[in-house]
């Protein structure tokens, strides 16, 4: 995202462009008020993030290439609205990082048409389609595939869909053709797929059913539930079986420790399971506690991580190669750390206070396989419009735990959000 060596003048130009865009939005918002069936909401957001590089990581020699320890400031405008049957959402930002330069860009997150014909409801275009009942992980979220572990929330980018839905008061059925026109070879979020989601509000629980056929991953079936057995307690769970899993696989050359291209490729392989169970308790005092455990059969196995560690040691110890070549290979190996779940078994605990003005929260993600964990804490202040959030994240556990191998030791952020 960040382009190095861009003069500071361009930063100023980016900010001017943002201000001009904001002014245009303000005037269009005034016009939109006179236009029936039209809504236009926009948000200004300023964000500062500081990171601390991890000198104990096996990837530390590649810290510069990986941008470890880099501090960034971002100004952003987010837009969301509707004109008749057309819905849209987008964002434009200018980010400045040290070391690094200025990046300014924008993105259309949603642009879709919604309509009805008799009892059927249609959606056509790019739209956020989030499914499932969990918080830390969502096996049934087969269209949106949202990364649930991001420290700083991002406005989601939709997926191209053709969607037909039917609703009664207690039952819903949704048929989605995701990524129409994409290559048959596309994987993960870009995979061309047909998915059906059924929902039924039963007396004891909400029931979610899923069936999917992907061009690469083939058949997939899943089910989930959410129930409130007591006034203050909610329980939920979901599970999915898939015929073929997409996994990130590293294939290194056998004869030398160093590769000349990235050894990491997505590969479609054998069948898999993903399962999550969780519960959330909320007291009258507005304190809530969430506990979730999940298994993700598409995450790397312990033997794969052992191979990863061995390869990192071999690269670092290959003194015959120049340092830049070793750093490049280690940087490629950091790709393995970008996966949603780094281990198959995960536990999440979260406590939060839902105050009117102050909203603190703390969460702890533990991977029992290696004892590694992620500890995050945040505090938000909500005014009439202005919201200010600050948070920190750090990685704990034994020194060889995978979370302790991340290029950053931790990070902290402050965000101010002003909606209009």
């Amino acid at each position: 995202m960040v382009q190095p060596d861009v003069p500071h003048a361009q930063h100023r130009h980016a900010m001017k462009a943002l201000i001009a865009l904001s002014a245009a939005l303000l005037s269009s918002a005034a016009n939109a008020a006179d236009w029936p069936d039209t809504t236009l909401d926009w948000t200004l957001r300023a964000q500062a993030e500081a990171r601390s590089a991890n000198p104990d990581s096996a990837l530390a020699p590649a810290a510069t290439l990986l941008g470890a320890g880099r501090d960034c400031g971002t100004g952003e405008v987010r837009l969301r609205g509707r004109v008749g049957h057309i819905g849209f959402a987008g964002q434009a930002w200018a980010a400045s990082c040290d070391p690094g330069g200025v990046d300014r860009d924008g993105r259309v997150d949603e642009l879709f048409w919604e309509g009805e014909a008799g009892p059927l409801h249609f959606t056509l275009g790019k739209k956020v389609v989030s499914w499932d009942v969990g918080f830390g992980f969502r096996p049934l979220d087969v269209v949106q595939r949202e990364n649930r572990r991001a420290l700083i929330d991002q406005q989601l980018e939709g997926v191209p869909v053709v969607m037909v839905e039917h609703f009664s008061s207690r039952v819903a059925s949704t048929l989605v053709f995701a990524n129409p026109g994409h290559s048959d070879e596309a994987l993960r979020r870009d995979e061309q797929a047909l998915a059906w989601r059924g929902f039924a509000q039963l007396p004891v629980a909400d029931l979610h059913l899923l069936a999917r056929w992907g061009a690469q991953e083939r058949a997939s079936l899943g089910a989930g539930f959410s129930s409130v057995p007591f006034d203050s307690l909610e329980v939920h769970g979901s599970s999915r079986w898939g015929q073929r899993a997409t996994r990130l696989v590293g294939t290194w050359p056998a004869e030398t420790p160093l590769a000349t291209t990235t050894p990491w490729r997505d590969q479609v392989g054998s069948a898999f399971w993903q399962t999550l169970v969780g519960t959330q308790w909320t007291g009258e005092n507005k304190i809530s506690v969430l506990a979730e455990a999940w298994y993700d059969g598409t995450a790397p196995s312990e033997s794969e991580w052992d191979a990863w560690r061995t390869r990192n040691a071999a690269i670092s110890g290959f003194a015959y190669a120049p340092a830049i070549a070793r750093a490049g290979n280690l940087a490629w190996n950091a790709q393995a750390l970008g996966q949603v779940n780094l281990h198959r078994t995960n536990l999440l605990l979260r406590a939060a206070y839902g105050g009117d003005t102050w909203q603190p929260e703390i969460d702890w993600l533990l991977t029992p396989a290696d004892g590694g964990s992620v500890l995050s804490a945040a505090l938000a202040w909500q005014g009439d419009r202005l919201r200010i959030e600050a948070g920190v994240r750090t990685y704990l556990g034994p020194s060889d735990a995978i979370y302790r191998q991340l290029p950053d030791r931790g990070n902290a952020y402050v965000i101010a959000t002003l909606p209009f």
Partner: protein
Amino acid sequence: MFESPSVRRALLLTTLLLCAGAAQAETPEALLKRADAWRLSADNMKVETRIEVMKNGALEKERDYLVFLRPGRESLVLMQSPAEKGQKVLMKADDFWMILPGSQRPIRITPTQKLIGDAAAGDVATLSWSEDYAPSQVEADKCDSVACTHLTLKAKQASVTYARIELWVDTKSAQPLKADLYVVSEKLAKRASFEAGTVSGKPQVTRMIIDDEILTNRRTVLHYRSRTAYEAPEAWFNPMYLTRNTVTP
């Protein structure tokens, strides 16, 4: 003629007895339904509400809500203020869902979670006591200079926002005057008072003032800005429908 204290006391007692007699003639359930009519003027309604959150007497926040109600204890709350825009809370009898604009995913929530937020969703969306509560005790009382009836309301379902409400209504008109709101733990959570005005030529409650008894420096004022008969489509009361853009009237 009425200046003698004993005569005035006798007259006052007679008036109270007459009022109590009138109250006894009407069942508590019927009285509660008449009290409901001061806020709920039709079975299917669209209600615009503005909430002012005051802290130590100063205005801290304003929030606007659009509420759709239909029989069977079903209501849909659409948050309208910039800070909350896009949030929706659906209540269907004992089941509740929330949707946040960022995730576009309905989340099942518990009755206790309804209490979270600038205004408890239950305060905003609940305009009928008679569907959720049964009057368990009735007694004649005096509220300032008005003869009133004190009703003790017990929740019919565990999922309602408050487990018990002590409600005082004008005995003659059934206008709600004040209420003490207790949560499940029997803790007094809030104390409410009601102000009436004329809406479309009909006397209605126009403001509800809620003093937080836990955060004692906090007061919430609900302004009922409009109430219109409106039958929202059935699909709007399906949680999965709420991700569609059309639920933004």
